[in-house]
């Protein structure tokens, strides 16, 4: 079994027009900048991007928004200091936006990856974000029914990987990467170091079964 792919370009080649793409990262940690750049070069459009943030300045997801490759954004915190390209596209009505509370976003992706049909969460009950959703009160506490959220692809960033697709992370750069690996049909990881030896099975965070390809990209953000 060898999931190694030579270049970032080869890694993103399976992504086609209109695909849904989960992109790991929070703030500037754990974002697969290399894979995003490769997707930019490839020029694939009509994408649904599922991510916590919607990019800031001219980096990461902001580049895809600037280039007009994004049709839809599903995220918890699209607006942040410097998220000019998101704001421009949103104000011009050029992208659809679904705002999901952050924990619900993670849990919906997990439900997809774990084969569940949905779940009840107290998050958002009684708020705008629950409007139109099925709700239920159990023992006096209100819950909202949330659906699984799957994607065609996930773009991930990890510290180390091996040829089986096992991944481990550094510091606070795990964030959404492990759960997105589970929730996408085809998960692509860029890793700072692609190890020749298998990773220590005790310290693997994302088992390779959740990862379809892995490529080395040593550059740190």
């Amino acid at each position, binding site marked *: 079994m060898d999931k190694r792919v030579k270049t970032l370009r080869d890694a993103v080649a399976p992504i086609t027009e209109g695909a849904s793409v989960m992109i790991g990262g929070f703030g500037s940690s754990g974002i697969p900048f290399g894979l995003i750049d490769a997707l930019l070069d490839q020029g694939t459009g009509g994408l649904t991007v599922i991510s916590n943030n919607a990019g800031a300045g001219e980096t990461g997801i902001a580049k895809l928004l600037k280039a007009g490759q994004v049709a839809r954004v599903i995220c918890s915190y699209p607006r942040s200091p410097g998220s000019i390209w998101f704001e421009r596209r949103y104000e011009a009505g050029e992208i659809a936006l679904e705002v999901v509370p952050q924990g619900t976003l993670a849990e919906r992706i997990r439900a997809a990856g774990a084969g569940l049909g949905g779940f009840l969460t107290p998050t958002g009950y009684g708020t705008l974000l629950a409007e139109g959703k099925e709700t239920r009160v159990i023992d006096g506490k209100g819950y909202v029914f949330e659906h699984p959220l799957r994607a065609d692809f996930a773009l991930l960033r990890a510290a180390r990987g091996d040829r089986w697709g096992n991944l481990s992370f550094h510091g606070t750069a795990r964030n959404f990467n492990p759960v997105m690996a589970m929730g996408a049909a085809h998960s692509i990881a860029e890793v700072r170091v692609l190890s020749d030896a298998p990773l220590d099975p005790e310290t693997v965070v994302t*088992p390779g*079964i959740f990862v379809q390809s892995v490529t080395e990209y040593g550059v740190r953000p």
Partner: protein
Amino acid sequence: MRRLGDADLAARVARDIPDGAYVNLGIGKPTHVSGHVPEGREVIYHSENGIIGVGPVPPEGQEDPEMIDASKRFITVAPGAAFFEHCDSFAMMRGGHIDIAVLGAYQVAQNGDLANWATDDERYPPAVGGAMDLVVGVPTIFVMMRHQNRDGSPKLLERCTFPLTGLGVVNRVFTDLAVLDVTPDGFRLVDLTPGNDLADVQAVTGATIHT
């Protein structure tokens, strides 16, 4: 009739496991499949108790009580293995990440219904384990069992009579007498154990075998 022994049956199942597959082997006979996968194929074995990349049984004296598989056999790790806890383990099963599961069965019906966790003997308390999670999540379910019960009665049936594990979940059945696929039309013959005659096998099968 020619009846495959356990080792030959395990080898027959192993032939149908492709290179690169993620496979869960059920408790009991299915455990032996891993010893028969043809050379040159790298198959990665998942065990529900929290490992992917199950390696061979350790040499005597080198057993680690905290390195076991779902059958409680002592194991080692294969290259590329990972350990994890139960929710992640069952996410792999339920979420469709494992390619093939090989399970034993009491009964299989021609519509793919599987009964492998409880009989109609009420003296035994029920024990389901992870079988129900496997069958709903893993896209390819292989069943590996004797063709008949000890009393000669058929285990391949038009309808299961024992409590079900899952509905319409079985894809292929490997028995000591034959290999059969479950199709929209019912059981369809894949191959007979060499030397057997279809009519003889049909006679000990509780549903029509299509060819």
